[in-house]
């Protein structure tokens, strides 16, 4: 095993180009477990800790450019307003110690369906900034997950940042685990209201081979909200609409039975979380619209 210690992003890209099998290590919260438990012996470890750019974020007009290694703790503390869904998701990650080390880049690189960030990124809308010595490209999050623990990165590419749309409405995130802290998701659900485009986006974790959106559920809800003029009148979403949305989210799952839970439970729980997060976000949205109304 070789330990590569690039001092800059350019050096990191060059190293990855030279050694495409090199495994990037930043927070180490996935890679080191595999090494400690003898599950993996990569030929090269590519340490990204010295690449300072990866720990920075910029808040732009439309979106946040979030460095791949920005620790979850920083996201929770600093980006709650801009990225509320991702901040909530960050808070569910493992333990304080892990949140101090791990970042979104690791979740994306590993692309485990259980990664906590994925549903929030899917719901918010995001693009992954991948770079190699050949150049930079932005991969839409919807195209990023290609299979179980597989992603759209080329062997010579590294994740530099993720561009996440700034919240234009309420966002929520829920995760089910069999413990009240420090737990891997049995399943997870992210939901974002986008009042500007009058759309709702979702993300489901740990209930399919990859993180997925519940597109049919989104389409249904977008139509129902539109039809009823909900975006304007701020009415309470009817229980039947919420239920159908929940059922469609559950139907979007393609889960398995494993030691963490049954497929049947995962479907059920995604439905419950879909209904609850819709209620929470919509109540929050109604609150803000009603406030605006009273001012106007």
């Amino acid at each position, binding site marked *: 095993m070789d330990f590569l210690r690039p001092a800059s992003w350019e050096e990191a890209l060059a190293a990855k180009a030279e050694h495409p099998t090199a495994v990037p290590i930043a927070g180490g919260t996935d890679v080191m477990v595999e090494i400690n*438990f003898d599950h993996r012996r990569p030929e090269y470890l590519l340490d990204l800790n010295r690449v300072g750019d990866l720990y920075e974020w910029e808040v732009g007009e439309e979106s946040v450019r979030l460095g791949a290694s920005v620790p979850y703790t920083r996201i929770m503390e600093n980006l709650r307003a801009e990225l509320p869904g991702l901040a*909530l998701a960050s808070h*569910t990650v493992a333990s304080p110690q892990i949140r101090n080390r791990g970042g979104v880049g690791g979740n994306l690189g590993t692309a485990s369906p259980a990664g906590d960030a994925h549903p929030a990124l899917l719901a918010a809308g995001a693009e992954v900034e991948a770079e190699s010595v050949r150049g930079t490209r932005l991969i839409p999050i919807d195209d990023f997950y290609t299979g179980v623990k597989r992603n759209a990165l080329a062997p010579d590419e590294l994740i530099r940042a993720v561009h996440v749309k700034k919240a234009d409405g309420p966002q929520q995130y829920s995760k*089910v685990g*069999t413990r*009240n802290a420090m737990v891997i998701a049995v399943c997870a659900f992210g939901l974002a209201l986008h009042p500007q485009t009058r759309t709702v986006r979702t993300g489901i974790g740990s209930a399919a081979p990859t993180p997925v959106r519940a597109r049919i559920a989104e389409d249904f809800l977008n139509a129902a909200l539109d039809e009823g003029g909900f975006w304007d009148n701020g009415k309470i979403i009817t229980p039947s609409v919420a239920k159908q949305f929940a059922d469609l989210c559950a139907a979007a799952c393609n889960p398995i039975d494993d030691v963490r839970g049954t497929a*049947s*439970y995962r479907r059920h729980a995604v439905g*419950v979380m879909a209904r609850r997060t819709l209620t929470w976000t919509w109540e929050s949205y109604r609150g803000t619209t009603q406030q605006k109304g009273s001012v106007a």
Partner: protein
Amino acid sequence: MPTNGAPTKITQGSQTRGGIGESMLRPDGILKVTGEFAYSSDMWHEDMLWGQILRSTVAHAEIVSIDTSEALAQPGVYAVMTYDDLPTEVKNYGLEIQDTPVLAHGKVRHHGEPVAIVAADHPETARRAAAKIKVEYRELPVITDEASATAPDAVLVHENRDDHHIGHVSHPNIVHRQPIIRGDADEAAKKADVIVKGEYYFGMQDQAFLGPESGLAVPEEDGGVHLYIATQWLHSDLRQIAPVLGLPPEKVRMTLAGVGGAFGGREDLSMQIHACLLALRTGKPVKIVYNRFESFFGHVHRHPARLYYEHGATREGKLTHVKCRIVLDGGAYASASPAVVGNASSLGIGPYVVDDVEIEAIALYTNNPPCGAMRGFGAVQACFAYEAQMDKVAAQLGMDPVEFRKLNAMEQGTVMPTGQPVDSPAPVAELLRRVKAMPLPPERQWESSEGADVRQLPGGLSNTTHGEGVVRGIGYAVGIKNVGFSEGFDDYSTARVRMEVVGGEPVATVHTAMAEVGQGGVTVHAQIARTELGVAQVTIHPANTEVGSAGSTSASRQTYVTGGAVRNSCELVREKVLELGRRKFGTYHPAWATAELLLEGGKVVTDAGEVLADLVDVLGDEAVEIEAEWRHRPTVPFDLHTGQGNGHVQYSFAAHRAVVEVDTELGLVKVIELACAQDVGKALNPLSVVGQIQGGTTQGLGIAVMEEIIVDPKTAKVRNPSFTDYLIPTILDTPTIPVDVLELADDHAPYGLRGIGEAPTLSSTPAVLAAIRDATGLELNRTPVRPEHLTGNA
């Protein structure tokens, strides 16, 4: 102190500070908070090697061949050993039945069985070498449950059994069977107005001590070996290790290294023999440290059990009879299975008065992971089931579950199903009364001005509910556990106590082989010595095999038995010191001959408080030292057909009330409070007593809602050997645990104390289950209960 002018008998030690009854702080506390306390995995030696174990990848198979040549050829590898390299004819070990191969011979019987061992100069070198050992297996069908174990054509897990249980079991895949028959349950059933039958399943729990199995074996010049080891019982290890090494016991020296928790999981050997074999083979010190993955294969677990119960009761709420059958899965090797069977059967109906009982407990040999000792063994599984039954009967009768229990609660004088009368306090009804009388925690504590605090809701930080679906439930349970080793076992301990003047002060040194595993025995031993010898300074000598056996740190027995031995030896030392004083100073004061003399505050005093001499002067340059064994009252084995016999030393009781909030839609549970009342006889160290009760309670919580080793029934392979998927409670899963300590002396025990470590683990689990049932209305006949069991998605 005398009150109301009444004379109070002055007892030895009542004037000496730091004695029994005080919450003295741990003598190892400073070392433990500074990181300097040397645990077994911290051992280090110049020039040491690292040992690695190669384990079977399948559960049941014949070993066709093992090829170690490539591993041996690796640079940095010093030794590779298999069964063929074992030095003597003794190649098995075991607590009671020597059925466990040091290294697999011809066959593996469970997933993760040791097949070969490697020593190398770096752990990674050892791991890579182990991976190069080629083992060819021919797989055999796996035995995983009672049906497959006892089928007429079942493959035998152990051929040619010759242990002392084989004569009374109906199938060679049954380790041990214990029936207990008292009265006539069938006849009594005719008087029952309600009969409740239930079938229960108790999952396989792991001790999950945090300090992994580890130790350092150092070869010695005389051809022997010195093992620094984390264990629960040095002398039991020694008895099993020495014959395999072909060494006389005196050439195997053992010193207790720091122990990072035990809970039963260190009662059996793990890496002890392997490290010694490699050290003797290479002539170099060898350290072995399991990682968490290996630890799940490296020690026995709590027996999973199927339990079948029938309870009958009259309309008035009196139990008529209990029938039960308890099937414990012992896995591939016997370990403590016979004792677990003894406890499960003899304590199978709980702390209740029932004259007509019919109990049967068996332990199976299967190809599942070996199961053995864990906190409260046998009694824990039974308590989960009989307490569920008690709630069901109460519900059928329309009675309050606590009142129903109190109506049937045993008390001092009650005769156990084994025929043994309970001859010390058994305040079962009082414990229930006390735990029920504690104030209930406020409702909806998660509500705050800023909305719901998810940390206080089911799901915790995962943000699954802001109050939706959340229902509160309350449940009660009480349990009975035996203290000490039962069934005729010679359960003694040894203490060496020395008194001498050091630096102008009288100092007592207490030397035992007791394994301090965190329970605080070392604190209590010093307190006993202060009380009995009236000195301030007590040194606790490191535990090793240079002193006689202390027995195991298990079965809630150490404060009773080794505490008893320390007291006994102190009393003998005191007599010798007084003798010395009489010899030196007897002529100066008549009280030396006539008065009752005590040692207090470093002085010899009369019972009237008159000082006769300083201990410094009495001792002078002499040291007084006694090593003596001490035994509690003997027990007898249970009759193999009727289960009758005074098999237990002492009983211990605890009751719990659980308050839970369940997200009924998602099936997530938050335990809000877990109150406990326990009789401890006499709290030698109240702070430690409460700590034990809270810790035991939390392990019971774990098995109620999350902890289970999951074994694939098709392959008998462990599916979750990690802390990622074997979950134990975090601080956010653990509620406040108010404790009400009752002190009713047991006159047969030292200071009237009662063993305390295990009882709180019993009733915690059924109390939590009862509370979840109360919240959900579900039957819930298995533990742990997982979210899918609460939502109907199992």
